[in-house]
């Protein structure tokens, strides 16, 4: 069972070094999570809960103090820079901000080719073919490759970011708030695209978001992060329907319901609960 896991994070501690007058910041404190091949683990929490740090640690961008990050049979928590570069083929990120994650001075095609060429996965002409193929898969026309990010809207750029991550055919994709910056109707398109790609390629996602509704929709299992610690972890349906921790409950109830009647009833209950304490 254990050897079938794709990713196993064990008692991970991440600390950002402090300055002369600042104490170091412990962003992840004793975090343990697991992801099986083809599984989506949702990671929720407020800003500052350490969820992006966990993604960064898996990608090798965060200073790991102790603990292990098992990727298949290898502990990558302290991997060398060279090994890290090799691992980028297997672990890819999709970042939140589609406006910052694409170099404005490079064409979409150059950005998409970059990883393929760095890993010598394709010759330049093969790379162009792969780029065209992936632009098609994410629903963008082939001439996109010759244009610059400034020509595209947020939703289109996020499709490019998805293509950049998946063109490497990774086994694990870390979606760090990948749809938070998008409009609702575009968000739905991108979420569907991510689900569809997972179905077709069998990759696994670590899906990081502050939005419980999005996480619930996307994830097989959910881990709730609070002050750098995992406070609750389990199948998505269980966490959503029977949260055992008050923090999880608060997160769930904070998502406004689209039904105004239900939402008003919920607010009334919440206010009643708070009234005596004030």
């Amino acid at each position, binding site marked *: 069972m254990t050897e079938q896991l794709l990713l196993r994070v064990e008692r991970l501690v991440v600390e950002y070094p402090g300055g002369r007058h600042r104490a170091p910041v412990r962003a992840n404190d004793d975090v343990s999570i697991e992801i099986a091949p083809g599984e989506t683990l949702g990671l929720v929490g*407020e800003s500052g809960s350490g969820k992006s740090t966990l993604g960064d640690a898996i*990608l090798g961008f965060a200073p790991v103090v102790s603990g292990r990050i098992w990727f298949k049979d290898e502990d990558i928590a302290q991997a060398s820079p060279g090994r890290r*570069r090799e691992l*980028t*083929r297997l672990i*890819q*990120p999709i*970042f939140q901000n589609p406006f*910052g*994650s*694409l*170099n*404005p*001075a*490079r064409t979409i095609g150059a950005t998409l080719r*970059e*990883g393929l060429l*760095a890993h010598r996965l394709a010759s330049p002409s093969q790379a162009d073919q792969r780029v065209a193929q992936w632009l*098609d*898969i994410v629903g*963008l*026309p082939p001439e996109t490759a010759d*244009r*610059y990010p*400034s*020509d*595209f*809207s*947020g*939703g289109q750029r996020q499709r490019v970011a998805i293509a*950049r991550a998946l063109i490497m055919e990774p086994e694990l994709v870390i979606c760090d708030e990948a749809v938070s*910056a998008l*409009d*609702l*109707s*575009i*968000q*739905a*398109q991108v*979420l*569907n*695209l991510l689900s*569809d790609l997972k179905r*077709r390629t069998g990759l696994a996602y670590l899906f990081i978001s502050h*939005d419980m*509704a*999005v996480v*619930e*929709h996307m994830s097989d299992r959910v881990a709730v992060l609070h002050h750098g610690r995992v406070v609750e972890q389990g199948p998505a349906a269980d966490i959503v329907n029977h949260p055992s921790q008050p923090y999880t409950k608060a*997160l769930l109830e*904070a*998502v*406004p*319901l*689209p*039904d*105004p*009647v239900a939402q008003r009833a919920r*607010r009334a209950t*919440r206010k009643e609960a708070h009234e005596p304490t004030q």
Partner: protein
Amino acid sequence: MSAWRRFLRQPLACAAAGLVVLIVLACVLADLTAPYDPIKQDLLAANQLPTSAHWLGTDSLGRDIWSRLLYGGRVTLSGSVLAVSVFTALGLPLGLIAGYRRGAVDRVLGRVVEVIFATPVIIILLVVLSVFSANLSAAMITLGVLGFGSLFRVVRASTLAAAGELYVKAARAAGLSGPAVLRRHILPNLWGQVIVQVALFAASAILTESGLAFLGFSVKPPDPSWGSMIGEASNVLSSHPFQLLPPGVLIGLVVLSLGLVGDGVRDVATTRRGPSPAVPATPVAPAVPVKAVAAGATTGPGTGSGDAAGAGQGPVSGSGQATAAVESDGPPADPGLAGALGTVGRPARSQALMPAEDEGDDPAVWADQRTAGADPAETWLTVRGLTVEFGPPGRAVTVLSGASFEIRAGEVLGIVGESGSGKTVTARALIDLLPAGGRIAAGSVDYRGDQVRSMGPARLNQLRGGQIGYVPQEPMTTLDPVFTIGSQLDEVVRRHDRGAKAARRARALELLDLVRLRDPAAILRCYPHELSGGMAQRVGIALALAGRPQLLIADEPTTALDVTVQQQVLDLLDDLRVQLGMAILLVTHDWGVLADLADRALVMYAGQIVEVGPTEAVYATPAHPYTRALIAANPATAQPGQPLPSIPGQVVPPGSWPRGCHFADRCPLVGPACLSDPVALRRVGPGRASRCLLTDGPADWAGPARHESVALEVTA
């Protein structure tokens, strides 16, 4: 390259660059360009003023000044090139390494540069020249070494900034090696600043060489250099002052020109990259077949991000493409619409259905909107035919087209829509606070009997922040980081309550207490960076409440906040409206936020109101296909395991709006009638209206959902 083209658009910098190139070429080719041997003496022709034989006259030994300048330039310029080469060879790579690697390397290099900066340049140069017996090359190499710190610092700082960009992180995550990241992603950001530094340093190297030559440390006489010529001319300054002029003016010109080139390059480098030249000058959107649009594959010009951008920068900086489309396929300008709306409420226009070609909204809608509430006197804000344009007259792009609605006493009206729908522009137009380049082209805004558009600046200022408060989206960026909350709050309080300092402080504390901030006295002493996002937004609300507003415009007040903090802020707004009897105009992109707070919902799409009505009714039976799709796309209501019902394609950018229904290219129900003419807002129920030809009312939605998943058009 567009950078070249932008540089070429600056006449002064281009002329300066041309002059430098010309002078350098003339000096390099001195054997051809100089009419005389520079050291050939002709004592009979000594100390002449310019003649036809000697264009710039002769010096005290009768040598041709023009020829000596050209040959002398070789010495001066080659010395300068040597210094600049050393300067660049040290400053650029070391700056890159220090900025990218940081840590110990950075600290060591930083200290070394500090030490070099502390050394007196001219004294070191004189020592070097005395050791190497007046060897100019040695002096110029030393100058490059002593000067590289300025380039190092600039490159290091820019590298640090560029290395923090998300796309650099993404490139590293794609497996690029350090040198590849530096070369492809960081270096292109630096060339502008490097050229500026190089140009300035070249100028200072020329001046230094001239200074050294003047002191006699450069070439040995009789060989010329620009500096030695100045030295020679100064010997005869009292009798023949003209001889100082040619070398002096030339040095001045070159130094000035290098400075101007640097200036021009800096302007080019700091201008943000616009759309690529690959973008055709014609509108892209209409050129894309409808099928492609439906598949979510448009490649139209950037529609801009965020609502303000969609409305503001989009059309303004955005593109001539968008502008061009207005004339070609947009509806005729909308004064007719505004005119039609001006007649609202007159009995002559009260028929229930409008002819299809009529551009105006159904007046019955507005009569209905009014009477559906209680007393018409309780309508605080009445907006009719509000139309907003961006861009210069004649090429203006309409971003909000004929919006009409009202806000009643104590109600919360929620405006919901996506980027580019015009919701933020609507909110800001109400208090005439449009971003630069925007203006109200037509329509009226009536605040309790006063026309906002005809108010003078003083009255308008009184209205804003007075009767109407405004809560911006990003509280942190609207608070001034250098002043305490106390002083920023006091500034606003002072405008409304001219009391003693103690009274104003009491009012500030009261306001902070009103927005439920614990320990208001401590908050007054805080600087904005010491507050969390939620606290900053509460301060933002307190600032808006200082003038005791009757109407609060909250523009995406919770978008930047976590869900739990969002809930607290929404609860606060709900409490405040009850406590203070305020009306609230809530602008949001999140239907859930609207459902939480708003009594009535106003749905906007591509610059138009597409549906309006009581929130519960709109949610239960959305009349417009867009409203229905928007509610369905919410993941909170999605079926687990099923694709989310998404809307294919994307919002049509302002300037590319079709003549007919703006939602037509994304609508599952679209028919020929939708495309031919503008669609009017029509009454679809008590207090409800919808801008759709095909749905006469909520009843139309009975039966199986017609807005089936249109999720993905992914081809294997």
